[in-house]
């Protein structure tokens, strides 16, 4: 019996780094009485966390296969 080459095209996905998919911790408001200055600091911390989360999403978008791209490989 002669061997025969059979080409099977299957989707090939690459796992994203865990660091890109880990949730970003939500900054908490400090305990005890708070002032407006504490609120301002908290708002800044929330913005920083949101920017960090958006940074993760942007990198996930770059790494994931583009729409219409050939994600199949011969096996």
């Amino acid at each position, binding site marked *: 019996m002669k*061997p025969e080459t059979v080409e099977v095209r299957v989707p090939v996905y690459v796992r994203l780094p865990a660091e890109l998919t880990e949730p970003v911790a939500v900054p908490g408001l400090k305990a005890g009485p708070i*002032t407006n200055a504490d609120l301002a600091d908290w708002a*800044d911390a929330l913005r920083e966390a949101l920017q960090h989360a958006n940074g993760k999403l942007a990198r996930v978008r*770059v790494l994931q296969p583009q729409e219409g791209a050939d994600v199949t*490989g*011969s*096996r």
Partner: protein
Amino acid sequence: MTVLLALLRRVPAEVWVGLLLLGAVAVWTWRWYDAGHDAGRAEAADRIAQLEAQVAELTAANAASQAVIDKLKETNRELAEGRAADQQAAAEAVADLRSERDALRVELDRRRIDRGVLYDRDPTAAAWASARVPDAVARSLRE
């Protein structure tokens, strides 16, 4: 000649019959051997032809197997290179993200310091900053 014929006439008929039989046996033996020899050569030729056909078939099968092996090697190499490129891109993305996170923290600290300077310079801002948030509001923000 006459003497030879006389000698031949004196040979008994049984001797002539014996000689004829010996000749016949010799001829038959030779023909039997020759036929066997030809059959053996034909059989050997058939066997050689069969072996040659088998060799050709095995050679073709081996070439096909080598082609399959080469194809598998090539596919494996492409996948490995693609995977390496993907891993490098992922590592670069993680490093870039960490760098951005560090910059965001520096920026956060800088804004906090700037606000402190603003509070020091502007009494109205300082008064606003030090005003206490009602406990009920604070509780609602923590929920």
